[in-house]
């Protein structure tokens, strides 16, 4: 009864097209992430030789290169290197006193301006990169200008080569190609030689280390030898370290059982062997070497041993003159995991040890502790009972005399947070774990859902009982009155200053929904959409091996909990407010009638889609020959539609073709079969298998993303079309709307029907489509969702090229926009404009406005409790969320409501009344006396 009225009201509202200046940065949130940093590619470095302040540079596991300000953890700049989510090795180096950082990934060596992240040069190598180093020559004459880079590359089974690249231009100075097909492993530069380390496979399948030394100036081979590693090396995994760019680079390896450590100083053939102490029968699980990374520093290194429950370390010294390695001292064994970092100051080397509760620094020369700081808290949240362990760390130490005067350490924790410790106190943290989010969902807190259900119950029952219910609710709420009265002044002040931060329980608008995210490494964490700067909890839910995928899917069926289904298991439920696992009792649906709900199951392969009803085959879809199925998107399960028709300008109605079983299926030419690049888009009825609409597009770039969406009675898809003389080249967005009939006030074959079944007869819809040329590719489409579907909709599109998310008002896309003529008065009343084939994305449509949101892959929306607002959450590398009101916030006072102005007006009117009242009385009295 209220709905038609409300929808009439919303018709009058012009759609909101933009982000308001005063709402930007307040209603939206964004984590500009890099991903988990890798230890070997993270360092402190001065962005230019003149500056004293250094930045933290890192190249992460997600392939993002960036600089972070150590003061507050903010991102200075960032670049996405190719090869996101690929396990290829990537490298990042910076020469001492250089204003460039040199990265290497896939086959691209690139130098970036350290200060602002712009590209200096980029060079492609012949094979996949195996290592990149900066050449630090000490002969003096080449120290002017940019330092050169050396790159080792080699594809599997192909010839490996070393190139020297000019530091200023990236031009190749010389190339040395190795003979044979030995696998390239690493390159290492001392002050006089470049050493390339290759792995030679013996007949028995063991590896031998082959060292080739090259002249850095000419690129000619000086010497070559094999290290007698005997039968210890079965795989490259047990090579612990090949130190680079130090006065005497070393190679260290262990046998598979981690019982002996072998060390060779590169350049000599002597191998020193050390037995690894087996403490109390625990087997050493991991051995790491930490060595300084400066050519002028002392040649000391630290070996870090790790068992399942403890860790310790030995420090070794190398005699530069004779290449002898001696053990200097040991650091004691401690429980738990630890991390070591190496820092240098002039020639001195310092090792910093981070454990669960302490940070300590020693000099490489002696075991005396130079500084010790207790770490009470890392300042991050974790799961219940979980101990947070450091994974790896990088430090910057400044030493005065015999004590450390200041130390800054960036630590990656086992929770996936990247934090900075100044001394022993955590100053900032970056939740880099969110960069590996693979699934996310909104969930309503239990209290909020209970409140919403009570309101629903009141609205749907008869007036008397609704009144009684409301009265009892208000009486029950009276017990909160004292607390409310106490906090009332504060609330009023907050309300006026706009600083109110409501807690979860008092969220009457449904803005404080909880977003749970599952990450690639088997963790799950939760954010509050209304207060996103705080992570509520973060816990490990699946124990995964390295590189193992678990394909989690999250859903929230009921307030206060989230269900996770993955390859690790199905139906695990968690409490969203604290992350506690709920005891899984299979819910029995008492009211569910098994006969009424007939199950349709779908099996999709590349070449067919099969549906079975009650385990009997129902229908089969196979694409045209030479085509494969690309994707299938169904209509969202929760997709409320307020009105079954569209009201035209003259008050007649066009009936929408509404069917809950619609799906959009895309088939494309298989790349293996023929060069024709076509894609076909089908609208299917998933119960009957009927094809309701199909359109084919030729000359499509099938390697670029094809985004699809179906909702209500309309569909949208986007693709990139190739050039032809007569057709435009570029990205296109197609929108189609399905109607029961194109004649107003007519339902076509369904006229007079109350119900119909799609298994018996499927009336065909009348489809209107429009194609728009858009300025850039769309990688994913989504639509805003509101509680009752009354609010007009916005099509959300992820734009990977400009790092943005755009909300396109549906009216701008409407397939009923008149073509070739201006809109009539009736059409104008509906808000229809003349069709224009080009749809430029107005910058005001960008929900991400000024923010640069990189690497987004998915976007989800959720309705708030109030009709006007839809919550949006997008993830990928970055995480971005906002709330949008596509028809303005018609049911809530927004920031545009000026409380001071309102109060001022009331006060002014009051004053005016008091001033004018005596005047008016006097006038009236005077008049009486005058005229009577």
């Amino acid at each position, binding site marked *: 009864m209220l709905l038609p009225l409300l929808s009439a009201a919303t018709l009058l509202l012009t759609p909101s*097209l*933009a*982000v*308001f*200046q*005063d709402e*930007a940065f307040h209603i939206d949130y964004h984590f500009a992430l890099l991903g988990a940093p890798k230890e070997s590619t993270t360092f402190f470095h001065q962005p230019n030789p003149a500056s004293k302040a250094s930045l933290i540079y890192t190249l992460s596991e997600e392939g993002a290169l960036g600089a972070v300000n150590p003061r507050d953890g903010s991102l200075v*700049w*960032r*670049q996405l290197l*190719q090869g996101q989510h690929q396990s290829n090795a990537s490298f990042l180096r910076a020469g001492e006193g250089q204003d460039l950082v040199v990265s290497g990934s*896939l*086959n*691209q060596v690139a130098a970036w*301006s350290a200060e602002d992240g*712009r*590209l*200096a*040069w*980029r060079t*492609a190598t*012949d094979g996949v990169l195996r290592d990149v180093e900066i050449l630090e020559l000490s002969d003096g004459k080449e120290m002017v200008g940019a330092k050169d880079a050396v790159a080792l590359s080699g594809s599997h089974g192909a010839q490996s080569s070393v190139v020297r690249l000019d530091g200023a231009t990236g031009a190749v100075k010389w190339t040395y190609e190795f003979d044979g097909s030995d696998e390239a492993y690493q390159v290492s530069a001392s002050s006089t030689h470049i050493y390339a380390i290759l792995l030679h496979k013996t007949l028995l399948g063991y590896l031998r280390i082959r060292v080739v030394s090259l002249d850095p100036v000419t690129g000619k081979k000086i010497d070559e030898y094999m290290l007698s590693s005997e039968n210890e090396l079965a795989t490259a995994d047990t090579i612990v370290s090949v130190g680079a760019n130090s006065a005497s680079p070393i190679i260290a390896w262990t046998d598979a059982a981690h019982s002996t450590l072998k060390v060779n100083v590169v350049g000599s053939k002597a191998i020193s062997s050390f037995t690894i102490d087996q403490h109390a029968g625990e087997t050493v699980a991991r051995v790491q070497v930490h060595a300084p990374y400066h050519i002028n520093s002392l040649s000391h290194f630290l070996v870090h041993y790790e068992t399942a429950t403890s860790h310790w370390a030995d420090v070794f010294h190398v005699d530069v003159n004779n290449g002898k390695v001696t053990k200097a001292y040991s650091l004691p064994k401690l429980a738990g995991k630890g991390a070591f970092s190496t820092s240098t100051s002039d020639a001195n080397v310092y090792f910093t040890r981070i454990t669960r509760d302490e940070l300590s620094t020693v000099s490489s020369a002696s075991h005396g502790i130079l500084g010790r700081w207790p770490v009470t808290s890392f300042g991050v949240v974790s799961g219940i009972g979980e101990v947070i362990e450091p994974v790896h760390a990088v430090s910057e130490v400044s030493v005065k005399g015999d004590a450390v005067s200041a130390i800054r350490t960036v630590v990656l924790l086992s929770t996936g947070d990247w934090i900075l410790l100044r001394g022993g106190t955590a100053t900032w943290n970056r939740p880099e774990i969110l960069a590996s989010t693979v699934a996310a969902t909104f969930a309503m807190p239990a209290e909020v859902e209970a409140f919403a259900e009570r309101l629903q119950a009141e609205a749907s029952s008869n007036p008397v009982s609704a009144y009684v219910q409301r009265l009892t609710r208000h009486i029950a709420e009276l017990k909160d009155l004292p607390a409310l009265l106490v906090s009332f002044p504060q609330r009023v002040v907050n309300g006026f200053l706009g600083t109110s931060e409501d807690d979860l329980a008092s969220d009457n608008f449904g803005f404080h929904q909880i977003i749970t995210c599952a990450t690639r490494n088997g963790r799950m964490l939760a954010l509050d959409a209304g207060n996103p700067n705080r992570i509520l909890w973060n816990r490990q839910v699946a124990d995964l091996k390295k590189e193992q995928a678990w394909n989690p899917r999250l859903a929230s069926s009921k307030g206060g909990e989230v269900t996770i289904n993955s390859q690790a298991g199905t139906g695990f439920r968690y409490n969203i407010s604290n992350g506690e696992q709920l005891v899984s009792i299979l819910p029995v649906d008492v009211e569910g009638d098994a006969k009424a709900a007939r199950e349709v199951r779908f099996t999709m392969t590349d070449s067919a889609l099969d549906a079975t009803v009650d385990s009997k085959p129902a229908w089969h879809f196979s694409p045209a020959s030479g085509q494969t199925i690309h994707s299938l998107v169904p209509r969202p399960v929760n997709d409320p539609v307020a009105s079954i028709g569209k009201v035209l300008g003259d008050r007649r109605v066009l009936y929408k073709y509404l069917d809950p079983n619609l799906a959009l299926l895309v088939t494309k030419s298989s790349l293996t079969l023929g060069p024709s690049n076509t894609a076909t888009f089908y609208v299917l009825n998933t119960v009957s298998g009927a094809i309701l609409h199909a359109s084919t597009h030729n*000359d*499509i*770039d*099938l*390697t*670029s993303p094809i985004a699809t969406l179906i909702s209500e009675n309309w569909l949208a898809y986007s693709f*990139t079309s*190739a*050039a*032809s*003389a*007569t*057709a*435009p*080249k*570029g990205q296109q967005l197609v929108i189609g709307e399905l109607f029961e009939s194109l004649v107003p006030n007519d339902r076509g074959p369904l006229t007079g029907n109350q119900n119909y079944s799609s298994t018996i007869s499927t009336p065909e819809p009348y489809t209107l489509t429009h194609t728009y*040329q858009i*300025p*850039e590719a769309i990688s994913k489409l989504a639509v805003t969702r509101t509680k009752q579907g009354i609010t007009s909709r916005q099509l959300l599109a992820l734009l990977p*090229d*400009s*790092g943005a998310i755009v909300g396109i008002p549906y009216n701008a896309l409407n397939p009923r926009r008149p073509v070739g003529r201006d809109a009539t008065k009736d059409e104008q009343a509906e808000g229809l404009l003349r069709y224009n*084939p*080009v749809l*430029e994305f107005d*910058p*005001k449509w*960008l929900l991400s*406005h*000024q923010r*640069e949101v*990189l690497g987004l892959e998915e976007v989800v929306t959720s309705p708030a409790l109030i009709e006007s607002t839809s919550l949006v959450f997008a993830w990928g590398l970055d995480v971005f969320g906002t709330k949008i009101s596509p028809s303005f916030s018609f049911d809530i006072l927004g920031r*545009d409501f*000026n409380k001071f*102005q309102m109060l001022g007006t009331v006060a002014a009117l009051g004053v005016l009344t008091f001033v004018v009242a005596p005047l008016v009385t006097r*006038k009236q009295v005077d008049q009486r006396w005058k*005229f*009577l």
Partner: protein
Amino acid sequence: MFSLRALALALCVSLATAARLTVSIPASALLPNPATLPPSTHAVLVGPPGVRYDAPIRRDSTFLFPALPAASYLLTLHSRDYAFPPLRIDVSSAPAESPQQQPMHAWQTFRGNEWANKGPSYGAGHGELHVHVQASSPKDFYQSRGGFNLMGFVKSPMILMGIVSAAMIFGMPYVMENMDPETKAEFEEMQSKSPITGSGGAANQIQNFDLAGWMAGKTADTGASAGGGGKKK
């Protein structure tokens, strides 16, 4: 995946030919200092299906595509702060006698038009081409609210009417007092005849309504004259 393919393609091509395209952003009135563009600014060159090159901005505010195979490309520049026009770049096959001299040509292109519809030329070259692309407009992300504006408030007709009537209420007595007696008398005469405020006016009629008389069946005329009978003059 496609970037890999493009890289592989770039690799094979770089051995044979090397059409080199440099795109630069010159300083203009709109964008006086291109060095202020964020490092995320990049140029995308979309060729035939599967071919796509992406070049980040360089320190001298240029984009470099070192080795392009013969094809027709769409060049788009993406920047957070400014919009740039799209360009069409054509690289033709090199003549046999000079394999390094691939003819290259750049035009402006228009979205939504057929690909053959080219705009003004942005330059041509052999084996190497340098194109200048000026920013076309700055991006404005925010809609400003129609906030409280005193002048706009005062200018609105309702408020103007209010001001005028307030001036009448407060100003009239002073004007009346300063009038010479004759004009005053004339004015009062006029006022008494006015239909609203005059003695026969609606306001007076309502105020002086003789309920008892009306109940007793007095006619409106006599009531009005009775009311009017009491006036001075």
